């Protein structure tokens, strides 16, 4: 089955990103396809490489990056939600006149159309959030 996953909450405050990650991993292990993971609302905060959790805690951001690398996942961060919350890649930072960027490896910034397309192209769209 082909899945699109939507993550609506930030890391650490909520468990949704953890659950979405575990769902994605389990689905891939069972041979399912992940068409896309879309990060929306505070979910865009899962994409900052500046995240520095204590050493004995899981690194939510790196975990997504590693899963993306391993399975060639498409991790998409909503541009409008990202701009509001200060998540930027090099191009976005430059476009908006910011002095830094923080997008983690394996993520890309794009528009809400990517979420709708995920809904159209996938057998199931699964939403993780409050």
């Amino acid at each position, binding site marked *: 089955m082909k899945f699109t996953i*939507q993550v*609506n909450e930030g890391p650490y405050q909520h468990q949704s990103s953890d659950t979405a990650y575990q769902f994605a991993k389990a689905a891939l292990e069972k041979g399912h396809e992940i068409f896309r993971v879309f990060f*929306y*609302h505070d979910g865009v905060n899962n994409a900052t490489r500046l995240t520095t959790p204590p050493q004995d805690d899981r690194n939510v951001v790196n975990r997504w990056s590693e899963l993306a690398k391993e399975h060639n996942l498409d991790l998409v961060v909503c541009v*409008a*939600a990202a701009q*509001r919350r200060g998540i930027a890649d090099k191009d976005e930072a430059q476009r908006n006149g910011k002095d830094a960027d923080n997008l983690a490896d394996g993520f890309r910034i794009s*528009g*809400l*159309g990517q*979420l*709708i*397309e995920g*809904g*159209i192209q996938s057998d199931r*769209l699964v*939403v993780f*959030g*409050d």
Partner: protein
Amino acid sequence: MSESKKFLYVNRKAPYGTVYALESLEVVLIGAAFEQDVQLLFVDDGVFQIVKGQDTKGIEMKNFSPTYSALGDYEVTKMYVSKESLEERGLTVDDLMPLTYEDEDDDWAEKDSIILVNKDEIAALMEEQDVVLSF
């Protein structure tokens, strides 16, 4: 895109206090360009999103409620509202904004977009969707 799916946006949160309602509306507006069969459902505190006479000056937030009135022009013509959620909050349909659309198949007659539904009807509505996005 030739394939058309039934999309239901489930709005469950109050319009202010969290950003879910505003950002849900942004998805609906972008999604409208994809020519899918779109429905909105307002349930729980989500019914407050379409209450008329919203004034946000005191909280210094943008009042985005006029946007719901424009959805008819984006061919979003079905806005389901939970009867129980209205009743639980002491609201009636008269407390809601008049949301309408012009029916191109009926000489552009102005029609109500709001459809009141009970819990069983909501369950049936969800059952018939291809994609349910909840906010």
